[in-house]
Protein backbone atom coordinates (compact mmCIF):
# COMPACT_ATOMS: atom_id res chain seq x y z
CA UNK A 1 0.00 0.00 0.00
CA UNK A 2 2.72 2.47 0.99
CA UNK A 3 4.74 1.87 -2.16
CA UNK A 4 1.76 2.34 -4.41
CA UNK A 5 0.67 5.46 -2.60
CA UNK A 6 4.16 6.85 -3.00
CA UNK A 7 4.03 6.12 -6.73
CA UNK A 8 0.64 7.77 -7.02
CA UNK A 9 1.83 10.69 -4.92
CA UNK A 10 4.94 11.23 -6.96
CA UNK A 11 2.76 11.92 -9.99
CA UNK A 12 1.32 14.92 -8.19
CA UNK A 13 4.53 16.39 -6.86
CA UNK A 14 4.50 19.29 -9.31
CA UNK A 15 1.00 20.45 -8.31
CA UNK A 16 2.02 23.54 -6.38
CA UNK A 17 -1.57 24.59 -5.71
CA UNK A 18 -2.10 21.56 -3.46
CA UNK A 19 -0.88 20.95 0.07
CA UNK A 20 0.93 17.68 0.84
CA UNK A 21 -2.18 16.36 2.60
CA UNK A 22 -4.38 17.26 -0.36
CA UNK A 23 -2.01 15.44 -2.70
CA UNK A 24 -2.21 12.42 -0.42
CA UNK A 25 -6.01 12.45 -0.59
CA UNK A 26 -6.31 13.05 -4.33
CA UNK A 27 -3.66 10.42 -5.05
CA UNK A 28 -6.16 7.86 -3.74
CA UNK A 29 -8.95 8.93 -6.11
CA UNK A 30 -8.10 7.67 -9.58
CA UNK A 31 -10.31 9.97 -11.72
CA UNK A 32 -9.05 13.06 -9.88
CA UNK A 33 -5.46 11.89 -10.06
CA UNK A 34 -5.89 11.33 -13.79
CA UNK A 35 -7.22 14.84 -14.20
CA UNK A 36 -4.46 16.42 -12.14
CA UNK A 37 -1.70 14.81 -14.18
CA UNK A 38 -3.47 15.46 -17.48
CA UNK A 39 -4.17 11.83 -18.25
CA UNK A 40 -7.28 11.29 -20.31
CA UNK A 41 -9.64 9.03 -18.37
CA UNK A 42 -9.45 5.61 -19.95
CA UNK A 43 -12.92 4.72 -18.90
CA UNK A 44 -16.07 6.66 -18.15
CA UNK A 45 -18.50 4.65 -16.06
CA UNK A 46 -21.92 4.68 -17.66
CA UNK A 47 -23.59 6.01 -14.58
CA UNK A 48 -21.19 8.91 -14.56
CA UNK A 49 -22.07 9.64 -18.15
CA UNK A 50 -25.66 9.84 -17.00
CA UNK A 51 -24.74 12.22 -14.25
CA UNK A 52 -22.92 14.41 -16.72
CA UNK A 53 -26.35 15.52 -17.81
CA UNK A 54 -28.05 15.26 -14.45
CA UNK A 55 -25.67 16.25 -11.64
CA UNK A 56 -28.56 15.88 -9.26
CA UNK A 57 -27.54 12.79 -7.40
CA UNK A 58 -25.92 13.91 -4.17
CA UNK A 59 -23.28 11.54 -3.05
CA UNK A 60 -23.66 9.28 -6.03
CA UNK A 61 -19.97 9.39 -6.80
CA UNK A 62 -20.28 10.68 -10.32
CA UNK A 63 -17.49 12.72 -11.79
CA UNK A 64 -19.85 14.99 -13.71
CA UNK A 65 -17.08 15.35 -16.21
CA UNK A 66 -18.83 17.00 -19.12
CA UNK A 67 -20.35 20.41 -19.36
Amino acid at each position, binding site marked *: *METLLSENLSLLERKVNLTPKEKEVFAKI*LPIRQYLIGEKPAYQPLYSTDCNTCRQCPGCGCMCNND
Partner: protein
Amino acid sequence: MTKPYFFIQWDATSRCNLNCLHCYHTPEERQTRRLMSSEEARFMLKDLSDTTQRWDFRGGIHFSGGEPLLRKDIFDLIDYSRDLGLEMRMLSNGTLITPNIARRLKDLGFEIVQVSIDGTKEIHNYLRNRSDAYDLATNGIRHLREVGIQPTVATTLSKTNFPEIEKIIQDAYTNGAVRIGFSQLVPEGTGKDLEMLSAEELYQAFFLLNQLRTKYHGKIEVLRSESLWCLFEDNQDYANRAIAEKSLGGGCGIGMFGISVLSDGIVYPCRRLPIAIGNIREGIQRIFIENEFLNRFRDLNNYECRDCKKVALCRGCRAVAYAVTGDPFAKDPQCFLHLMREK
Protein backbone atom coordinates in the same frame (compact mmCIF):
# COMPACT_ATOMS: atom_id res chain seq x y z
CA MET B 1 -10.41 17.98 -20.11
CA THR B 2 -13.26 19.03 -17.86
CA LYS B 3 -12.40 19.76 -14.27
CA PRO B 4 -13.50 17.49 -11.42
CA TYR B 5 -16.59 18.56 -9.55
CA PHE B 6 -16.74 19.06 -5.78
CA PHE B 7 -20.03 19.89 -4.14
CA ILE B 8 -21.67 20.68 -0.86
CA GLN B 9 -25.18 19.39 -0.42
CA TRP B 10 -26.60 21.87 2.04
CA ASP B 11 -29.78 21.62 4.07
CA ALA B 12 -30.63 25.31 3.70
CA THR B 13 -33.26 24.61 6.33
CA SER B 14 -34.48 21.48 8.06
CA ARG B 15 -38.02 22.84 8.07
CA CYS B 16 -40.45 21.42 5.58
CA ASN B 17 -44.05 21.92 4.55
CA LEU B 18 -44.44 18.15 4.18
CA ASN B 19 -44.05 15.28 6.62
CA CYS B 20 -42.94 12.42 4.43
CA LEU B 21 -42.90 8.85 5.67
CA HIS B 22 -39.39 8.19 4.35
CA CYS B 23 -37.67 11.44 5.36
CA TYR B 24 -34.14 11.16 6.74
CA HIS B 25 -35.12 13.76 9.34
CA THR B 26 -37.26 12.92 12.32
CA PRO B 27 -40.19 15.33 12.94
CA GLU B 28 -38.41 16.60 16.08
CA GLU B 29 -35.25 17.30 14.12
CA ARG B 30 -37.19 19.28 11.54
CA GLN B 31 -38.47 21.57 14.26
CA THR B 32 -35.43 21.93 16.48
CA ARG B 33 -32.29 21.83 14.37
CA ARG B 34 -30.68 25.25 14.37
CA LEU B 35 -30.44 27.34 11.22
CA MET B 36 -27.07 28.68 10.07
CA SER B 37 -27.18 32.46 9.87
CA SER B 38 -26.82 34.24 6.55
CA GLU B 39 -23.26 35.13 7.52
CA GLU B 40 -22.39 31.54 8.34
CA ALA B 41 -23.88 30.40 5.04
CA ARG B 42 -21.90 33.02 3.14
CA PHE B 43 -18.70 31.93 4.89
CA MET B 44 -19.37 28.34 3.76
CA LEU B 45 -20.10 29.39 0.17
CA LYS B 46 -16.99 31.57 -0.03
CA ASP B 47 -14.87 28.76 1.41
CA LEU B 48 -16.34 26.37 -1.18
CA SER B 49 -15.56 28.78 -3.99
CA ASP B 50 -12.04 29.60 -2.77
CA THR B 51 -11.11 25.99 -2.06
CA THR B 52 -12.36 24.56 -5.36
CA GLN B 53 -10.66 27.36 -7.28
CA ARG B 54 -7.38 26.62 -5.56
CA TRP B 55 -7.80 22.93 -6.35
CA ASP B 56 -8.71 23.85 -9.94
CA PHE B 57 -12.01 22.00 -9.57
CA ARG B 58 -15.55 23.08 -10.36
CA GLY B 59 -17.47 23.94 -7.20
CA GLY B 60 -21.13 23.19 -6.74
CA ILE B 61 -23.75 23.99 -4.14
CA HIS B 62 -26.83 21.80 -3.92
CA PHE B 63 -29.60 23.58 -2.00
CA SER B 64 -31.59 20.96 -0.16
CA GLY B 65 -33.49 20.55 3.09
CA GLY B 66 -36.11 20.27 4.46
CA GLU B 67 -37.60 22.34 1.72
CA PRO B 68 -34.97 24.89 0.66
CA LEU B 69 -37.54 27.37 -0.64
CA LEU B 70 -38.77 27.85 2.94
CA ARG B 71 -35.53 29.59 3.91
CA LYS B 72 -36.17 33.33 3.96
CA ASP B 73 -32.83 34.44 2.53
CA ILE B 74 -32.57 31.60 0.01
CA PHE B 75 -32.62 33.87 -3.03
CA ASP B 76 -29.93 36.14 -1.56
CA LEU B 77 -27.72 33.09 -1.00
CA ILE B 78 -28.43 31.79 -4.49
CA ASP B 79 -27.48 35.19 -5.87
CA TYR B 80 -24.28 35.13 -3.83
CA SER B 81 -23.45 31.60 -5.02
CA ARG B 82 -23.91 32.66 -8.61
CA ASP B 83 -21.60 35.64 -8.10
CA LEU B 84 -18.99 33.28 -6.67
CA GLY B 85 -19.17 31.18 -9.81
CA LEU B 86 -20.56 28.10 -8.10
CA GLU B 87 -22.68 25.67 -10.05
CA MET B 88 -26.09 25.43 -8.44
CA ARG B 89 -28.64 22.68 -8.06
CA MET B 90 -31.80 22.55 -6.00
CA LEU B 91 -33.48 19.52 -4.46
CA SER B 92 -37.08 20.42 -3.75
CA ASN B 93 -40.37 18.72 -3.04
CA GLY B 94 -41.77 20.92 -5.80
CA THR B 95 -44.86 22.04 -3.95
CA LEU B 96 -43.78 25.68 -3.60
CA ILE B 97 -42.62 26.16 -7.18
CA THR B 98 -45.09 28.66 -8.58
CA PRO B 99 -44.63 30.29 -11.99
CA ASN B 100 -42.99 33.26 -10.25
CA ILE B 101 -40.58 31.09 -8.26
CA ALA B 102 -39.68 29.12 -11.39
CA ARG B 103 -38.97 32.35 -13.28
CA ARG B 104 -36.84 33.64 -10.43
CA LEU B 105 -34.81 30.44 -10.31
CA LYS B 106 -34.28 30.62 -14.05
CA ASP B 107 -33.21 34.26 -13.88
CA LEU B 108 -30.71 33.38 -11.14
CA GLY B 109 -29.09 30.78 -13.33
CA PHE B 110 -30.63 27.42 -12.49
CA GLU B 111 -30.66 25.00 -15.40
CA ILE B 112 -31.75 21.90 -13.52
CA VAL B 113 -33.98 21.46 -10.47
CA GLN B 114 -34.72 18.13 -8.87
CA VAL B 115 -38.26 17.40 -7.70
CA SER B 116 -39.06 14.33 -5.63
CA ILE B 117 -41.92 12.16 -6.83
CA ASP B 118 -42.33 8.84 -5.06
CA GLY B 119 -45.11 7.12 -6.90
CA THR B 120 -48.29 7.59 -8.78
CA LYS B 121 -50.67 10.14 -7.30
CA GLU B 122 -52.16 7.92 -4.62
CA ILE B 123 -48.86 6.46 -3.45
CA HIS B 124 -47.03 9.78 -3.58
CA ASN B 125 -49.70 11.50 -1.48
CA TYR B 126 -49.61 8.61 0.99
CA LEU B 127 -45.82 8.73 1.31
CA ARG B 128 -45.79 12.53 1.44
CA ASN B 129 -48.56 12.57 4.01
CA ARG B 130 -50.58 15.21 2.20
CA SER B 131 -53.53 14.86 -0.15
CA ASP B 132 -52.49 17.56 -2.62
CA ALA B 133 -48.74 16.91 -2.60
CA TYR B 134 -48.72 15.20 -6.00
CA ASP B 135 -50.70 17.90 -7.79
CA LEU B 136 -48.56 20.65 -6.30
CA ALA B 137 -45.31 18.87 -7.16
CA THR B 138 -46.31 18.07 -10.73
CA ASN B 139 -47.49 21.65 -11.19
CA GLY B 140 -44.06 22.70 -9.97
CA ILE B 141 -42.44 20.48 -12.59
CA ARG B 142 -44.56 22.05 -15.32
CA HIS B 143 -43.71 25.56 -14.14
CA LEU B 144 -40.00 24.74 -14.24
CA ARG B 145 -40.30 23.36 -17.75
CA GLU B 146 -42.26 26.41 -18.93
CA VAL B 147 -39.39 28.74 -18.03
CA GLY B 148 -36.74 26.50 -19.57
CA ILE B 149 -35.42 24.74 -16.47
CA GLN B 150 -34.90 21.00 -16.88
CA PRO B 151 -36.83 19.15 -14.16
CA THR B 152 -35.28 15.95 -12.87
CA VAL B 153 -37.55 13.60 -10.93
CA ALA B 154 -36.02 11.74 -8.00
CA THR B 155 -37.78 8.66 -6.67
CA THR B 156 -36.88 6.69 -3.57
CA LEU B 157 -37.50 2.99 -4.12
CA SER B 158 -39.31 1.03 -1.43
CA LYS B 159 -41.71 -1.88 -1.32
CA THR B 160 -44.53 0.67 -1.45
CA ASN B 161 -43.76 1.98 -4.94
CA PHE B 162 -41.79 -0.95 -6.33
CA PRO B 163 -44.70 -2.23 -8.48
CA GLU B 164 -45.25 1.22 -10.02
CA ILE B 165 -41.87 1.85 -11.60
CA GLU B 166 -42.94 2.13 -15.23
CA LYS B 167 -46.02 4.20 -14.39
CA ILE B 168 -43.85 6.61 -12.40
CA ILE B 169 -41.61 7.05 -15.45
CA GLN B 170 -44.59 7.53 -17.77
CA ASP B 171 -46.13 10.12 -15.49
CA ALA B 172 -42.85 11.97 -15.03
CA TYR B 173 -42.53 12.22 -18.80
CA THR B 174 -46.13 13.37 -19.19
CA ASN B 175 -45.63 16.01 -16.52
CA GLY B 176 -42.59 17.47 -18.26
CA ALA B 177 -39.58 15.92 -16.52
CA VAL B 178 -36.58 15.35 -18.76
CA ARG B 179 -34.91 12.72 -16.57
CA ILE B 180 -35.67 10.50 -13.64
CA GLY B 181 -33.48 8.72 -11.13
CA PHE B 182 -34.35 6.00 -8.63
CA SER B 183 -32.46 5.73 -5.36
CA GLN B 184 -32.29 3.15 -2.61
CA LEU B 185 -34.35 3.84 0.49
CA VAL B 186 -32.15 4.38 3.54
CA PRO B 187 -34.05 3.12 6.57
CA GLU B 188 -33.25 5.98 8.93
CA GLY B 189 -35.17 8.96 10.33
CA THR B 190 -38.87 8.46 9.75
CA GLY B 191 -37.91 6.25 6.80
CA LYS B 192 -36.88 3.46 9.15
CA ASP B 193 -40.50 2.37 9.32
CA LEU B 194 -40.75 1.86 5.58
CA GLU B 195 -39.68 -1.39 4.02
CA MET B 196 -36.63 -1.29 1.81
CA LEU B 197 -36.30 -3.68 -1.09
CA SER B 198 -34.47 -6.96 -0.70
CA ALA B 199 -31.38 -7.55 -2.84
CA GLU B 200 -33.52 -9.72 -5.13
CA GLU B 201 -36.13 -6.98 -5.52
CA LEU B 202 -33.53 -4.28 -6.13
CA TYR B 203 -31.97 -6.46 -8.81
CA GLN B 204 -35.40 -6.89 -10.41
CA ALA B 205 -35.98 -3.15 -10.22
CA PHE B 206 -32.62 -2.27 -11.78
CA PHE B 207 -33.07 -4.95 -14.44
CA LEU B 208 -36.44 -3.45 -15.33
CA LEU B 209 -35.07 0.10 -15.26
CA ASN B 210 -32.30 -0.97 -17.60
CA GLN B 211 -34.93 -2.12 -20.10
CA LEU B 212 -37.04 1.00 -19.59
CA ARG B 213 -34.02 3.19 -20.31
CA THR B 214 -34.10 1.85 -23.84
CA LYS B 215 -37.87 1.93 -24.15
CA TYR B 216 -38.09 5.58 -23.09
CA HIS B 217 -34.92 6.74 -24.84
CA GLY B 218 -35.62 10.06 -26.57
CA LYS B 219 -38.54 10.81 -24.26
CA ILE B 220 -37.17 10.82 -20.74
CA GLU B 221 -33.75 9.75 -19.57
CA VAL B 222 -33.76 7.03 -16.94
CA LEU B 223 -30.63 7.62 -14.87
CA ARG B 224 -28.29 5.04 -13.41
CA SER B 225 -26.96 6.96 -10.50
CA GLU B 226 -26.63 4.54 -7.60
CA SER B 227 -23.28 2.83 -7.03
CA LEU B 228 -24.70 -0.63 -7.63
CA TRP B 229 -25.44 0.29 -11.25
CA CYS B 230 -21.76 -0.31 -11.96
CA LEU B 231 -22.54 -4.03 -11.72
CA PHE B 232 -24.33 -3.70 -15.07
CA GLU B 233 -21.31 -2.21 -16.79
CA ASP B 234 -18.40 -3.63 -18.74
CA ASN B 235 -15.75 -1.98 -16.62
CA GLN B 236 -13.46 -4.69 -15.31
CA ASP B 237 -10.24 -3.42 -16.89
CA TYR B 238 -10.70 -0.05 -15.25
CA ALA B 239 -11.73 -1.68 -11.96
CA ASN B 240 -8.60 -3.85 -12.05
CA ARG B 241 -6.39 -0.83 -12.58
CA ALA B 242 -8.01 1.08 -9.71
CA ILE B 243 -7.65 -1.91 -7.40
CA ALA B 244 -4.01 -2.44 -8.43
CA GLU B 245 -3.29 1.20 -7.68
CA LYS B 246 -5.17 1.07 -4.36
CA SER B 247 -7.46 3.83 -5.58
CA LEU B 248 -11.12 4.63 -5.64
CA GLY B 249 -12.26 4.55 -9.24
CA GLY B 250 -15.89 5.58 -8.83
CA GLY B 251 -19.01 4.39 -7.06
CA CYS B 252 -20.01 5.68 -3.63
CA GLY B 253 -18.93 9.30 -3.54
CA ILE B 254 -18.08 9.45 0.14
CA GLY B 255 -14.65 10.95 0.52
CA MET B 256 -14.40 11.57 -3.20
CA PHE B 257 -16.48 14.45 -4.53
CA GLY B 258 -18.46 16.19 -1.84
CA ILE B 259 -19.80 16.53 1.66
CA SER B 260 -23.21 17.18 3.17
CA VAL B 261 -23.88 20.09 5.51
CA LEU B 262 -26.94 20.17 7.75
CA SER B 263 -28.91 23.32 8.49
CA ASP B 264 -26.88 23.96 11.66
CA GLY B 265 -23.50 23.41 10.02
CA ILE B 266 -22.89 19.81 11.12
CA VAL B 267 -21.15 17.87 8.35
CA TYR B 268 -21.97 14.32 7.27
CA PRO B 269 -19.91 12.33 4.75
CA CYS B 270 -23.14 11.96 2.75
CA ARG B 271 -26.63 13.27 3.50
CA ARG B 272 -27.84 9.75 3.90
CA LEU B 273 -25.06 8.68 6.31
CA PRO B 274 -25.80 10.34 9.67
CA ILE B 275 -22.33 10.31 11.20
CA ALA B 276 -21.07 13.78 12.15
CA ILE B 277 -17.50 14.48 11.01
CA GLY B 278 -17.29 18.14 12.02
CA ASN B 279 -18.82 21.55 11.59
CA ILE B 280 -18.49 23.51 8.37
CA ARG B 281 -17.15 26.43 10.44
CA GLU B 282 -13.91 24.44 10.59
CA GLY B 283 -13.55 24.81 6.84
CA ILE B 284 -13.65 22.37 3.92
CA GLN B 285 -9.90 21.79 4.05
CA ARG B 286 -9.99 20.59 7.64
CA ILE B 287 -13.03 18.39 7.18
CA PHE B 288 -12.68 16.91 3.70
CA ILE B 289 -8.90 16.62 3.62
CA GLU B 290 -7.83 16.13 7.22
CA ASN B 291 -10.67 14.18 8.85
CA GLU B 292 -9.33 10.73 9.66
CA PHE B 293 -12.73 9.03 9.71
CA LEU B 294 -13.48 10.29 6.20
CA ASN B 295 -10.04 9.13 5.13
CA ARG B 296 -10.94 5.57 6.09
CA PHE B 297 -13.44 5.53 3.22
CA ARG B 298 -10.51 6.04 0.83
CA ASP B 299 -8.86 2.75 1.71
CA LEU B 300 -10.42 -0.25 -0.05
CA ASN B 301 -9.06 -2.56 2.64
CA ASN B 302 -11.49 -1.10 5.17
CA TYR B 303 -14.57 -2.39 3.37
CA GLU B 304 -16.17 -5.74 4.08
CA CYS B 305 -16.59 -6.13 0.32
CA ARG B 306 -12.86 -5.48 -0.26
CA ASP B 307 -12.39 -8.79 -2.05
CA CYS B 308 -15.10 -8.05 -4.61
CA LYS B 309 -13.69 -7.44 -8.10
CA LYS B 310 -15.89 -4.35 -8.41
CA VAL B 311 -14.99 -2.75 -5.07
CA ALA B 312 -13.04 0.17 -6.53
CA LEU B 313 -16.02 1.16 -8.67
CA CYS B 314 -18.89 0.41 -6.33
CA ARG B 315 -18.84 -0.25 -2.55
CA GLY B 316 -22.65 -0.14 -2.67
CA CYS B 317 -24.46 2.39 -0.51
CA ARG B 318 -22.61 3.06 2.74
CA ALA B 319 -25.71 4.68 4.23
CA VAL B 320 -27.86 1.60 3.67
CA ALA B 321 -25.09 -0.58 5.13
CA TYR B 322 -24.88 1.66 8.20
CA ALA B 323 -28.65 1.93 8.69
CA VAL B 324 -29.06 -1.85 8.56
CA THR B 325 -25.93 -3.06 10.36
CA GLY B 326 -24.58 -0.10 12.32
CA ASP B 327 -21.26 -0.42 10.46
CA PRO B 328 -20.63 2.01 7.59
CA PHE B 329 -18.02 -0.36 6.14
CA ALA B 330 -20.28 -3.42 6.14
CA LYS B 331 -21.45 -4.98 2.89
CA ASP B 332 -24.43 -3.22 1.32
CA PRO B 333 -27.26 -5.66 2.16
CA GLN B 334 -28.93 -4.80 -1.14
CA CYS B 335 -25.92 -5.80 -3.24
CA PHE B 336 -27.12 -8.22 -5.92
CA LEU B 337 -23.86 -9.25 -7.56
CA HIS B 338 -24.28 -12.83 -6.34
CA LEU B 339 -27.65 -12.99 -8.08
CA MET B 340 -26.15 -11.86 -11.38
CA ARG B 341 -23.58 -14.66 -11.13
CA GLU B 342 -26.37 -17.19 -10.72
CA LYS B 343 -28.04 -16.09 -13.99
